[in-house]
């Protein structure tokens, strides 16, 4: 993507040069000037204005304005901007100074031309934010397609995942994950993944058009949980008027024999549009380059390299419809994401288990116990309208995350050895979580002088129910409210200041839970049986004040940014009140009802130098938590409900972290470019029981060397061949129960092109991940603790076929 960017830059510089020489050459010249806007009335910077027949060209500035000296006999003016339809007008020049009326560019039909990556949006957006930001679009995802959205984004420095199996993973931004990274889809905070490490993200990556990844504390915009970053999945662009079209995506993967695809159909008349999508996937157990796995000293043989019972399937439905006018837009989004995935059968329960290998190894595609089923429903409405100077946006959302973990009944503590027949829970339903979230938010953007204000309030109401025969977290209700004010001050062409603050209020009410079976208790040498309470009724409230301030300094080639700010996170039910066995890790987890809200202070810097042939971007950060919430492994064992498993307790400690990312790119030749992406992170606990230790899942340093060859082949467009070599350093900084992870070298190969088929361009991409079938461990993998290597070689073929059903002029 960035090769294209530098290509474009080079073109612009060349053109600028031409403008200079032409302007001098023409004697009979007149001046013209004007402004270029998007159809959303925002000024377009970098639009190319060309005069015909002289071919004099200029580029619009930040305000979208341009001015030129052109020959009096000029006939035509053309404006082009990537992603927008070419605009042309006839010129009739009679005065020596001509002002052209405002030009509004229309966006190209969504999807159809979307694979054009020469996209300035990302660059502009990055320059206007003081936090570190990465923006990728759907073609980046197609090029780097992984098992889940987060896996596809892993190529970005500072972004890693905690993966569970081949189909689900959680974002890990600069070493922090779980509830410390927020995921926003269509403006609504995605709720559902905070229960545990085994919960992936219920997002359909085919339905993602553009993702912005903020690597820094973003609580001031998003509230609690955005303490270390945010993944903002932007709404789909609207289809253009009078079009009915769509696309088909097809994907196949060799490693887990996955096949799947997605069909999209959209249409729009003048003001009404619809957009629908259906995605389905089916995959088998994934393969690893090893014959056996060491699950905490238990040797588990694997059949034909298959990781037993990690097959899965997914079915996602989306529909959105809306009404668009110049000053009023209202869109309704509906989606339902369903997935069923198996857990590695030998590593679930109270201890590493023997399984019925005959049953499990019969087919690599069936899903046996243990497995999880997750259904995530989302309904939301975004309405925006213009009220004088004010751009107001309201959002209403409802989400339901329904999640069940199925596993054979295993008694522990005083649970009866045989499952009672009259029990109200199905025998194999180990756990059930049912989360319902209502959210409302209002945001207003307006300008006062050179200040651009954004002010907003939002409220979220959650209800969480539990089920199943085992207990880990109680049911709870939660309410969060926040108010924020953000001011962006454009001091002049070069300087941009940011200041923001936010007030938050949160309340969590946890329900009482008692065992469904009686336990033996001894009090004053009197033995009796009673139903034990696992969780008491508990209400906690949290208030928070966070602020953030930043600065941007943008020159032609160099841009600098700095940001300092605080962020916060409310402790979640798991941290406050868990009291049970985590069957994935064979441990007993105990919450701590006295936890305070996590606070974070972070300094972020960014330096970017863009030249015609090369670019460098460095983004270091320094971060301090006075009270990081940490699940501390103790020396104790729980002999009752915990069945003798080790006790882990939530505690808080001071934590210091620093690190950064370095991205450099160099275009050797017109067709050949290289890039080097480096990331590094150090974290240390400065107090508490694990003083001196790092934090769990600390990603080791890594360097990615990428080489891309983009030949120009007849009848093909955007052809590329790229080779990525990633060196990941060893990770010796560990904390119990982690193990040191050795360094590794992994190669990925990717290629793709676009072929013209009829009116449309079909895009094909092929990837070979782990080219040399290297056996290596990933320190941040969910299954790292059981010494499970990463997936074997994986060949991924993906095709996108856009189609146009109808286009009215």
């Amino acid at each position, binding site marked *: 993507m960035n090769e294209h960017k530098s290509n474009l830059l080079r073109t612009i510089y060349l053109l600028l040069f031409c403008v200079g020489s032409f302007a001098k050459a023409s004697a009979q010249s007149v001046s013209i000037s004007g402004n270029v806007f998007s159809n959303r009335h925002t000024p377009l910077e970098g639009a190319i204005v060309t005069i015909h027949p002289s071919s004099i060209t200029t580029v619009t500035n930040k305000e979208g304005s341009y001015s030129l000296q052109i020959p009096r006999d000029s006939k035509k003016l053309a404006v082009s901007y990537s992603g927008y339809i070419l605009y042309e007008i006839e010129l009739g020049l009679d005065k020596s100074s001509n002002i052209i009326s405002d030009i509004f560019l229309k966006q190209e039909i969504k999807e159809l031309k979307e694979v054009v990556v020469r996209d300035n949006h990302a660059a502009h957006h990055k320059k206007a934010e003081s936090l570190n930001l990465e923006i990728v679009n759907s073609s980046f995802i197609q090029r780097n397609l992984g098992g889940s959205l987060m896996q596809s984004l892993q190529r970005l420095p500072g972004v890693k995942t905690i993966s569970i199996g081949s189909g689900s993973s959680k974002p890990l931004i600069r070493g922090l994950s779980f509830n410390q990274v927020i995921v926003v889809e269509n403006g609504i905070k995605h709720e559902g993944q905070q229960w545990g490490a085994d919960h992936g993200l219920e997002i359909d990556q085919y339905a993602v058009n553009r993702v912005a990844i903020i690597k820094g504390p973003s609580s001031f915009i998003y509230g609690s949980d955005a303490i270390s970053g945010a993944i903002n999945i932007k709404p789909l662009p609207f289809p253009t008027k009078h079009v009915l079209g769509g696309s088909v995506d097809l994907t196949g993967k060799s490693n887990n024999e996955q096949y799947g695809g997605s069909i999209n159909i959209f249409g729009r008349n003048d003001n009404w549009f619809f957009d629908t999508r259906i995605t389905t996937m089916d995959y088998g157990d994934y393969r690893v380059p090893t014959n056996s796995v060491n699950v*905490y*000293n*238990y*040797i588990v043989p694997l059949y034909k390299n298959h990781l037993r019972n990690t097959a899965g399937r997914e079915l996602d439905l989306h529909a959105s419809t809306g009404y668009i006018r110049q000053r009023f837009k209202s869109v309704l989004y509906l989606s339902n994401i369903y997935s069923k995935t198996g857990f590695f059968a030998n590593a679930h*329960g109270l*201890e*590493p*288990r*023997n*399984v019925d290998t005959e049953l499990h190894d019969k087919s690599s595609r069936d899903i046996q116990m243990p497995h999880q089923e997750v259904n995530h429903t989302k309904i939301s409405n975004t309405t925006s309208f213009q009220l004088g100077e004010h751009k107001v946006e309201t959002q209403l959302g409802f989400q339901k995350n329904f999640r069940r973990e199925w596993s054979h009944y*295993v008694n522990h503590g005083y649970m009866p*050895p*045989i499952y009672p027949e009259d029990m109200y829970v199905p025998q194999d339903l180990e756990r059930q979580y049912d989360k319902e979230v209502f959210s409302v938010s209002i945001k207003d953007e307006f300008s006062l002088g050179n200040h651009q204000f954004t002010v907003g309030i939002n409220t979220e109401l959650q209800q969480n129910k539990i089920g199943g025969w085992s207990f880990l977290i109680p049911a709870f209700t939660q309410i969060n409210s926040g108010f924020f004010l953000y001011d962006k001050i454009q001091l002049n062409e070069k*300087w941009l200041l940011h200041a923001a603050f936010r007030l938050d209020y949160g309340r969590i009410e946890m329900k009482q839970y008692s065992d469904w079976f009686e336990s033996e208790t001894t009090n004053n040498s009197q033995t009796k049986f009673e139903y034990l309470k696992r969780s008491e009724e508990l209400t906690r409230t949290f208030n928070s004040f966070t602020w953030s301030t930043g*600065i941007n*300094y943008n020159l032609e080639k160099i841009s*600098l940014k*700095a940001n300092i700010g605080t962020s916060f996170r409310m402790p979640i039910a798991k941290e406050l009140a868990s009291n049970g066995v985590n069957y994935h890790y064979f441990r007993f987890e105990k919450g701590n009802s006295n936890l305070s809200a996590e606070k974070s202070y972070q*300094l972020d*810097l960014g*330096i970017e130098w863009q030249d015609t042939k090369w670019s460098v971007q*460095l983004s*270091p*950060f*320094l971060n301090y938590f006075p009270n990081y919430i940490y699940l*501390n*492994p*103790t*020396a*104790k*064992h*729980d*002999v*009752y409900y915990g*069945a*003798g*498993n*080790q006790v*882990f307790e939530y505690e808080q400690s001071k934590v210091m972290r*620093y*690190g*950064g990312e370095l991205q450099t790119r160099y275009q050797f030749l017109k067709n050949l470019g290289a890039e080097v992406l480096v990331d*590094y992170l*150090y974290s*240390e606990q400065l107090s508490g029981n*694990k003083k*001196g*230790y*790092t934090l769990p899942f600390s990603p080791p*340093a890594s360097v990615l060397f990428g080489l891309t060859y983009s030949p120009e082949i007849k009848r093909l467009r955007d052809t590329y061949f790229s080779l990525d070599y990633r060196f990941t350093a060893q990770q*010796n*900084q*560990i904390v*119990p*129960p982690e193990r*040191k992870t050795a360094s590794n070298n992994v190669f990925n190969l990717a290629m793709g092109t676009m072929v013209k088929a009829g009116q449309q361009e079909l895009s094909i991409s092929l990837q070979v991940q782990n080219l040399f079938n290297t056996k290596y461990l990933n320190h941040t993998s969910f299954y790292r603790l059981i010494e499970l290597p990463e997936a074997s070689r994986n060949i991924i073929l993906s095709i996108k076929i856009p189609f146009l059903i109808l286009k009215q002029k």
Partner: protein
Amino acid sequence: MNKMKFTKFVRASFALASIFTACDSGDDTKIDTEYPVIDISAASAFPIQCSEVSPGQKITFKARFTDNTALGSYSLDIHHNFDHHNHSTEVNDCSVEAIKKPIKPLLYINSVAIPEGLKSYDATQEISIPEDIDPGDYHFLIRLTDKEGWQTIKGLSIKIK
């Protein structure tokens, strides 16, 4: 403004330098990253893989625990393996009986804190096997932690008959 820019620059350069110099600083092994060790190789150790005990018998668990800094606690767990769900951490397997349904299986779970500050500890624990429990294949699980929370597990197959 320019001064501010300058300080920003200096800070940035400092941070950049720290990135590359700090790589090794955290690695001086003041922290404990070693697992404790369960040793059942002594002649007096009991039970060991494939040991057999009888209902009504009083057995004595014996093992030696060691750690590089300080031991934490250990837990013992005896549970049935009638469904063959367990396997052991040991290399050799023991013969198992056919799968059967538990009626009154033995379940023994006990945890013992090891006196503070010990690097080596000879654990001894008396366990009474009740008279009226189901005989058959059982699993004897030893979990040992050190003070920092590193844990080692040993799973042994035993038989009650």
